[in-house]
């Protein structure tokens, strides 16, 4: 099938999509946007978190056909050219990035949190990121990064 979707503000078209493919597969393998990650592909790890019409979702749990004529924003769409989004900047500075495989999902989840709650408390940050697994950092520096990004708003 053919899928038409707006991705990071650009109208995109994917052809020969098999009906069983996920949004994640289409983004990664058909649209050249591998930033959203494939760590579990069953909605447990949050590494593929993207905005679908401004709501964060696990791209692995969205069927490709469901995004027809809708808007997707991925981690690749957060920076303004060379200028990182403040959340991205804070992740690098705070040391919240080690292997970085969880990072795209966490950056999108943290971005969404700060859009909704500009000055979150620690328990609010923890709750908002509870769907994103990280195996390297023990989360401490991820919390630091979100606090830093919030403080700079």
């Amino acid at each position, binding site marked *: 099938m053919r899928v038409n979707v707006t991705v990071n503000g650009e109208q995109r078209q994917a052809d020969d999509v*098999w009906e*069983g493919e996920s949004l994640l597969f289409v983004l*990664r*393998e058909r649209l*050249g*946007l*591998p*930033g*959203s*990650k*494939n*760590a*579990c*592909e*069953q909605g*447990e*790890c949050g*590494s593929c978190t993207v905005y679908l019409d401004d709501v964060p979702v696990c791209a692995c749990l969205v069927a490709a056909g469901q995004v027809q004529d809708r808007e997707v924003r*991925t*981690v*690749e769409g*957060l*920076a303004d050219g060379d200028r*990182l989004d403040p959340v*991205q*900047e804070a*992740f*690098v*500075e705070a*040391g919240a*990035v*080690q*292997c*970085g*495989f*969880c*990072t*795209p999902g966490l*950056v999108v989840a943290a971005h969404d949190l700060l859009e909704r709650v500009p000055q979150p408390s620690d*328990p609010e*940050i*923890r*709750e908002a*990121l*509870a*769907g*994103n*697994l*990280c*195996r*390297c*950092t*023990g*989360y*401490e*520096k*991820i*919390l630091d990064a979100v606090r830093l990004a919030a403080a700079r708003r």
Partner: protein
Amino acid sequence: MSLTPAELSSSVAGGIGASPQRPDGNLKVRGEFAYASDLWHEDMIWGSTLRSPHPYARIVSIDLTEALKVPGVHAVLTHQDVPGSNLYGLEHKDQPVLAVDVVRYQGEAVALVGADHPETATRAMKRIKVEYEVLEPVVDMETAADDTPLHPGGNLVRHVPIRRGDQSPTADVVVSGRYEVGMQDQAFLGPESGLAVPAEDGGVDLYIATQWLHVDQGQVASALGMPLDKVRLTLSGVGGAFGGREDLSMQVHACMLALHTRKPVKMVYNREESFYGHVHRHPAVLHYEHGATRDGKLVYVKARIFLDGGAYASSTGAVVANAATLGVGPYEVDNVTIDCYGLYTNNPPCGAMRGFGAVQAGFAYESQMDKLAEKLGLDPVDVRIANAMTEGSVMPTGQVVDSAAPVAQLLKLVKDKPLPPVSTTLDLRSMPGGVSNTTHGEGVVRGIGYAVGIKNVCFSEGYDDYSTARVRVQVIGGELVALAHTAACEVGQGLVTIMQQIVRTELGVQRVTILPMDTSIGNGGSTSASRQTYVTGGAVKAACAAVRDKLTKLAGGRELSEVDLADLVGDDVIDETVEWRHRATEPLDPETGQGNAHVQYGFAAHRAVVDVDVELGLVKVVELDCAQDVGNALNPQAVLGQIQGGSAQGLGLAVMEEIQTVGGKVRNPSFTDYLIPTVLDMPPMSIDVLELADPNAPYGVRGVGEPPTISSTPAVVAAIRAATGLALTRVPVRPEHITQT
């Protein structure tokens, strides 16, 4: 602009001791860093692996006919298509690339499919007919040695005995116990992946996520029946490792498909396949007996340790040596009798995971120290301090600990930290069970526990452990710039940052480019055993020194600090490659386990504070504090990241992480059923970092990555014991262990 070394030593930013940003950080937060699973090649096809559903079975027949008929399938391969040796392995070549006539674990690779779409490959795999004759699996590590032999030499992979001092000691007080450690998974987030591209010279280029390029290269070349120079590996982005990428996964398979089809082949495991596709932490059964005086001084330790290596040896031999030699922990004990066994079974193969044998022993010996303290009515920290090793202490192997061993100091540091307050507000988010609303505080009991651990750093037992580094300086656009090249794998820990820092400090060059890691340069050794900052860091430092020697010659007698380096180098290119080794170690005596087998020891201590809902068996770790000696924190931010991440993995083993097997079959190969700590499970940490330089190591560094994984687990369990009064001899501690239902 160019700077002189004198100016640079004080003014160049981002040298050692600083925490400059990672060179790959921006790419990673932008989603533009190319991990192995992100690779793409024009005209590439997808490879997938048919695996055994049985833990132990004879293969009667394999019929590929129907699979080959599926449109879009390019190849279906079996062991008959392995061009070279079908056997590989890190220590013993005992594992088939593809099964021949028997499968020894559930998930063993049997056949490969190459197809135009992953779904096509899946459909074709379902059409491969494999007839199995199912056999009774060997699953009990304690009896495996006398059970059906799974390999020609029987089921004992390795026995390491340690005999030191009096072998028939007596003591005033004796405590004994049997402890169990479940099978933990590395659970790195980036799945096993790679891209194999057939080359015009008949060889293959493999872009791969691994921990050790050269050991992969050797094994792949052997399986393909090719000389080393025809098998070229380049590291692609690695999404975590923790030991799980030391062994081969899809490396040979992708290359076979690529060479067979003459097309680039991408393979990416999904999470379920990843659980079958790499080795795990050895489950263990540990029998311990500690004898002590009435005032708590250890007189002797006796232990029998069993480690389940599963179907293939992987690095079981080295894990056995670690559990044995580190088996009494960071304590002075004059009389030691340890027998440690690694066994073959039909359980999933086990090998390296962060902590590598020291984790299993650590849970048992620290549980014993608590038991001893309880029996004597002493404080658990006091008992540990009374027996704590120091610099100059003698290990059970006879090896003298010849650099800092601040065991007592680390324990005091965690003990003296202020305790977190008991929550007085009713916030469900701070309760065991969280927003599941399982308690409002009723039935919740607080407990505090302590533990300390010891880990060897670098490769041991006489292994020729080295790394190769190349450093080049030249002037580009009027600026002196440096380039560093190694084959040492960046897996997320930040080696690329450390390399830049070392070059900046040694050469005073601000701009340092790290070349992609590949096999065009000599061996960088394994990214494991907490060794890369020590060994590859040492190699980069030595290569910089070689570059400096060349610069000094160019300067013709002038001090380097007095010349403009960019002018000095001019149009020249200075390019030096150095192989660097740490001091040699010795094998263990096979009868007594005596010998200077280890290079360096690392130590960490933890204090855990937990709240336990004793009615439901739910645990909330309230705080997990750590003190660790790192010798010299070359990058303080990265050091803390290692301690935090390592502690989290230890917490996971304490209360949630286990690959559960029944009759050799894995019951929970998914992140739905194999739980790792989330941000809700991981408490705040207060961390003290000591920097007691090791005079034998470059910059005095001490390996950082593993020690925190060792003491975290027993500290959390000790805290749960303190809250519940239960013995809790098995990790992970499950709710039913607490409720005893």
